[in-house]
């Protein structure tokens, strides 16, 4: 596709349920990032993938959060036993991650707004 896509656009779930958020990066982009945007914490990094491996998971807030990437493409962010404080917009970005200049720019998807009731 032309850009990064994310699904669903909006998700409302009950406290305690599990949710899966999906990200389709730009074709050929080896790097993929998840960020979270919430009122209290601003925009924060969650996890970084290079290919299918995740060398940096330092931003995941708890062990209820996990992510995987398959085929060097699609990534899924899973939140188990959701809590109200998980309510936020989850943004995904991808890049080529090589060299200088525009080749390593991050392109963002439109995000998934998660509401935990």
């Amino acid at each position, binding site marked *: 596709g032309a850009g990064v896509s994310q699904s669903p656009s909006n998700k409302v779930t009950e406290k305690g349920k599990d949710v899966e958020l999906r990200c389709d990066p730009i074709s050929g982009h080896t790097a993929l990032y998840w960020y979270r945007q919430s009122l209290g914490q*601003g925009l924060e990094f969650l996890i970084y993938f*290079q290919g299918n491996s995740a060398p940096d998971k330092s931003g995941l807030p708890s062990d209820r959060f996990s992510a995987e990437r398959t085929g060097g493409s699609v990534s899924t962010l899973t939140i188990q036993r959701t809590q109200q404080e998980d309510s936020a917009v989850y943004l995904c970005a991808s890049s080529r991650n090589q060299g200088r200049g525009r080749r390593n720019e991050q392109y*963002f998807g439109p995000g998934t707004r998660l509401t935990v009731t």
Partner: protein
Amino acid sequence: AQTVTQSQPEMSVQEAETVTLSCTYDTSESDYYLFWYKQPPSRQMILVIRQEAYKQQNATENRFSVNFQKAAKSFSLKISDSQLGDAAMYFCAYRSGVGAGGTSYGKLTFGQGTILTVHP
């Protein structure tokens, strides 16, 4: 760890006038990038302008320009001839530079954002 600070939660400007958004950052690295992103109500983060720390010349993109003061660790965004479509949340962001082998691991560290309102 790097930090990015935007001290202006909200700014406003009249259409066709100029506005400057402030950003300061803290880092011990010498090679890094700085960015300004725009986020309209659609949530889509749009890259406005980028600056590489090793370049002394300030970046410009049409009506958008930056004032990059490396020693002061300051990176402000100037929007000239403001348009109604410029209204959005603006984020300043930091990223480490190119590492060994040309790879560029680049998680972004964002400031808190500045809401820009443009009055007709």
